[in-house]
């Protein structure tokens, strides 16, 4: 009762805030029909923006109309510089997915080994400490030089940036499994492999999933920047291309979609995390 009314009121406030934001945006960007005096050459150069008082910033109605156009045909393909937003997002998601899955396949088994072995943990620590703080984009030239394929280089950058949170969380989760649970397995003469799957994995799963959730967030942040660099396809490339076309409307739409996809990816991982979390 209390919670539903709270949720209802919070939803109402959200709607009011959204309406206020759209209203202010609309007012701030509408045409003011006031012609400023300037030299004719300059006015020609500036186009409608300056000559008719039209703001360079599109209003919410322009963005809405354009968004509707995009949503009606998300998957059209008119050559390299004109593809539907669905296709561009699809490229980005595919790159993130591939790089991220590769990182999962490496980080979780490796994290298990490191977490279970104090020797490996100590031996690999200096490498991890140095590699972890490197900006993933710093790897890009090296990747382009060695791999010689821009798309795979982008995947590599996603791999590199999403591996660290998962690796470190797996190591931490595995190394800090409660001693008494390990002792239960030991008194039952459970072998190492079965112990890893029946005790350590479920005990460390919430920590591992938390690392995976951080990783997917970082991967989605990085893919936009990486695609701006390598070009060709993807939502990051789309943003850069539309900026070069001076289509701020499309840039705003892309920003909105990047946010929504990022949120969905985070929600998916949050749901997985809830599934493996156990109350104590």
């Amino acid at each position: 009762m209390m919670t539903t009314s709270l949720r209802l009121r919070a939803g109402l406030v959200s709607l009011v805030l959204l309406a206020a934001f759209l209203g202010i945006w609309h007012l701030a960007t509408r045409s003011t029909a006031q012609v400023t005096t300037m030299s004719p050459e300059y006015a020609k150069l500036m186009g409608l923006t300056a000559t008719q008082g039209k703001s360079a910033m599109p209003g919410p109605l322009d963005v809405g109309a354009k968004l509707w156009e995009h949503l009606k045909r998300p998957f059209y393909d008119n050559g390299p510089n004109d593809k539907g937003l669905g296709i561009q997002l699809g490229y980005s998601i595919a790159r993130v997915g591939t790089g991220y899955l590769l990182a999962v396949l490496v980080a979780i088994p490796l994290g298990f080994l490191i977490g279970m072995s104090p020797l490996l943990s100590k031996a690999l620590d200096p490498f991890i400490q140095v590699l972890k703080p490197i900006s993933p984009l710093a790897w890009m030239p090296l990747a382009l030089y060695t791999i010689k394929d821009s798309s795979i280089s982008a995947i590599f950058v996603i791999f590199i940036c999403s591996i660290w949170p998962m690796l470190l969380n797996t190591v931490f989760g595995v190394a800090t499994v409660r001693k008494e649970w390990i002792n239960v397995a030991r008194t039952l003469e459970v072998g190492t492999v079965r112990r890893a799957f029946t005790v350590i994995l479920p005990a460390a799963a919430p920590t591992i999933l938390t690392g995976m959730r951080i990783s997917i967030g970082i991967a989605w942040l990085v893919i936009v920047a990486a695609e701006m660099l390598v070009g060709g396809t993807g939502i990051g490339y789309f943003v850069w291309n539309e900026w070069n076309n001076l289509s701020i409307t499309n840039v705003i739409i892309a920003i909105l979609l990047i946010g929504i996809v990022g949120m969905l990816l985070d929600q998916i991982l949050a749901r997985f995390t809830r599934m493996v979390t156990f109350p104590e």
Partner: protein
Amino acid sequence: MADKFISIEGIAKRYPGAGGATTTIFENLWLSMARGEFCCVIGHSGCGKTTVLNILAGLDAPSEGAVIVDGQAISGTSLDRAVIFQSHALLPWRTVLGNVAYAVSSKWRSWDRAKVRAHAQKFIDLVGLSGAEHKRPSELSGGMKQRVGIARALSITPKMMLMDEPFSALDALTRGTLQDEVRRICLETGQTAFMITHDVDEAIYLADKIFLMTNGPGAVLAEVVENPLPRDRGRTDLHRHPLYYALRNHIIDFLVTRSKTFTTEKPDHDPRNVPTVQIGKPGLSIASDAKPEAPRETSWPGLSRPSTSS
């Protein structure tokens, strides 16, 4: 002592201390238990009781000496020696049935699911948890959790049970009920049991033999006290037994004063031949104030039924 089912032979435990020195928790510790015997260990915190239990379980290795179980020196843990942990140590992501079944399937790897479940269910019923099989540990009270721990330990039909203060985290009422259960089960199944406790009355109610340990570091096993109460004893009339107070006072005296001074007062103590104290038997002097109440022997025989009230 003809039957030495479990024999701890001269074990020591040392840890590296500050500045390169070694700290000896205990050394040259000898003790033995017969099959089917219920033994309790009493001693102050930090004297090394948990360490001894962990060595018996195989979770910890002694720095010196050996532990012989059923004629064989142990190395590591074994399904023959079940441990009931103080903190119950249930796997929180598994249900009650899942926790017990995990132990069952660890012991009998070739059993199919149905057989494992049926076997686990039998032990869940035994500890009185029928109906709670599908609950998770977080939904159980402390007493119920410890029951699951007991069911899990019993389900692998071990040769002995090792219990490290299993009831110390429970309220008095639950503790009493569980003591009754453990006593009943151990008597019925002829379990050999080794239990650490802080509770003198718990030791008197459950034990056949009580090991008294002096304070650490350098703790020694000072005495083995034989419980003079009949095996067939009831919780409610325990204190009416003529030797109850003598036994209780002997243990409390030890804990209050002698555990501190024992090593200095008895320099000729032989750890290989620890004196066995038989309360009330001729040859042993008990302080005259050890019997504050007139013995009410007459009330004893009729009340000698194990109490199973819950």
